[in-house]
């Protein structure tokens, strides 16, 4: 008996080094699945880019004219005589709505971030954070619905204008939509400022506001810029709410009360109705490529800025 024990334990130890039991296979499988999950983001983004480029390329290489595409307001894709694809009015519409959205969202989100991050404490802070995250979870079609049925009559009455579906309406809605994500990122940026900065400033006799304005905000500057950029990206890419609230009208806006049409909304409204492979279809994909590149660049810059602070 005493002889067989070491032999058995030795063979067991050998199994430990090279075990191929169920747990080992589970371990490997989980490894593989997690790895796939990790790289899938890269695969998807490449896949999407290849797909939209392939669909839009036919137009880009055949009859793309940058001066018409970017310089003309004539968006007449279904004309019988001569279809024209000028996105200037759509681009201006998107820019106007996103711009106004930022005017609304920046003060709101910055204020919320400063309050949550610097001034509130304990329960208030936790509740506010949860509420801001809940605000981010409201579906965009619900926002669009609010724009269409609440803001529209309100704007007509309040500003005495004939139509309430316009830049102002879409901008306010988009601003409220972009604010939560901007608040969350801005608050992270404020949190990244080390406490001894604040303590040092307070030791010098600075008031709360002086600490925030002179020390915390300048230190967190990059993160705040990134928060704004991500908000711009969100506003640029938003579709449903803009489609419903902007009036969907090919028009160069001259005031906040003009109806406009956004690039995204145009794709949403028209893509389902074009024949697969037609020129109109390819132009819509070209707009898709353009939008993809813009939001990709915005997010990339924001990400680089955030990484920049982390390194310090």
């Amino acid at each position: 008996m005493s002889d067989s024990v070491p032999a058995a334990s030795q063979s067991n130890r050998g199994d430990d080094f090279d075990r191929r039991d169920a747990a080992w296979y589970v371990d490997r499988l989980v490894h593989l699945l997690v790895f796939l999950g990790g790289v899938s983001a890269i695969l998807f983004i490449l896949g999407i880019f290849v797909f939209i480029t392939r669909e839009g390329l036919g137009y880009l290489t055949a009859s793309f004219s940058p001066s018409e595409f970017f310089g003309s307001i004539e968006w007449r894709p279904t004309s019988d005589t001569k279809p024209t694809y000028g996105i200037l009015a759509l681009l201006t519409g998107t820019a106007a709505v996103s711009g106004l959205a930022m005017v609304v969202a920046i003060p709101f989100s910055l204020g919320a971030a400063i309050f949550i991050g610097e001034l509130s404490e304990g329960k208030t802070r936790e509740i506010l954070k949860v509420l801001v995250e809940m605000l981010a979870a409201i579906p965009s079609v619900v926002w669009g619905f609010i724009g269409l049925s609440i803001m529209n009559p309100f704007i007509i009455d309040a500003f005495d204008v004939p139509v309430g579906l316009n830049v102002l309406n879409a901008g306010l809605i988009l601003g409220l939509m972009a604010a939560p994500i901007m608040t969350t990122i801005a608050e992270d940026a404020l949190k990244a400022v080390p406490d001894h900065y604040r303590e040092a400033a307070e030791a010098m006799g600075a008031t709360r506001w002086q600490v925030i304005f002179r020390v915390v905000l300048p230190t967190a500057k990059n993160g705040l810029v990134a928060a704004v950029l991500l908000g711009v990206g969100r506003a640029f890419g938003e579709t449903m709410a803009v489609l419903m609230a902007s009036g969907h009208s090919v028009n160069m806006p001259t005031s906040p009360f003009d109806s406009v049409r956004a690039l995204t909304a145009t794709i949403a409204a028209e893509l389902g109705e074009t024949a697969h492979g037609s020129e109109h279809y390819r132009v819509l994909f070209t707009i898709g490529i353009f939008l993809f590149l813009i939001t990709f660049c915005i997010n990339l810059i924001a990400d680089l800025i955030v990484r920049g602070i982390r390194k310090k």
Partner: protein
Amino acid sequence: MNSKTIFFSTIASAVFLIGCGGSRADRSVLQNKGSDTLVNVAQAWAEAYKDKNPKLAIAVSGGGSGTGISSLINGTVDLANSSRKMKDREIEQAKKNGVEPVEHVVGYDALAVYVHKDNPIESLTFEQLASIYGKDGKVVSWDQLGVSIPGAKSEKIILVSRQNNSGTFTYFKKTVLGKGGEYKLGSLDMHGSKDVVDFVMKTRGAIGYSGLAYTTDEVKLVPIRKSAGQPAVIPSVSAAVDGSYPITRPLLMYTRGKPEGAVKEYLDWILSDEGQSIISKKGYAPIRKIQN
């Protein structure tokens, strides 16, 4: 990627097979898609046909004539509803995909011009409509037409149009603006026939066009003259049947090739007195006079 793909596709195909197994045994499905103008009546037909032939389910969806036609070209529907004729381009494309579209007239529709119910305008000629809607038209405010709308914020005409692949959009353009005519840009482009009427109902300075069947008591239908000397005709089903209303268009269904089997039976029933009495009840004109 591989193991995941296989896993999900196995589940998906299993679900698909179970689904098919159940339905294939006793009923089949016809896909019917297209014109927003026709969607209500297409649904009514599908409902009524259920009693005639319980084994055939007809799935109806809207989205616009362009949607229906492009689905027909892509081969995903059996019947495409359309409020305009297929363009040569589209027929070519369909043939390239091996689809030979065949056109069937299933009814007629009067395209009404809607304004707010307080708008005092008495009638509009084609020429006036073209100067309101056309690319080179000079009319941008109601006082240019000699009317002023009580309670309106401004005299500006708020143009309401449709998304550019709608059959209504195309037909109105061709009929009122003439061949090769283009719309003025800057109109509010609505995504459905009903949306046009809803918007005009709520907006005093607005003018819009949409199928007569979408009318409500809260909007005004503008009587239309083809030219200044001719009588103004209020859009109605009877004016569409006798052809006196000038913006009347055929409502079409396209099939892939000559209709056969279930599709043929369904179309024949639509064109029968029974099917045609349903379309006239929905506010459209039947293809011939029928006794109800």
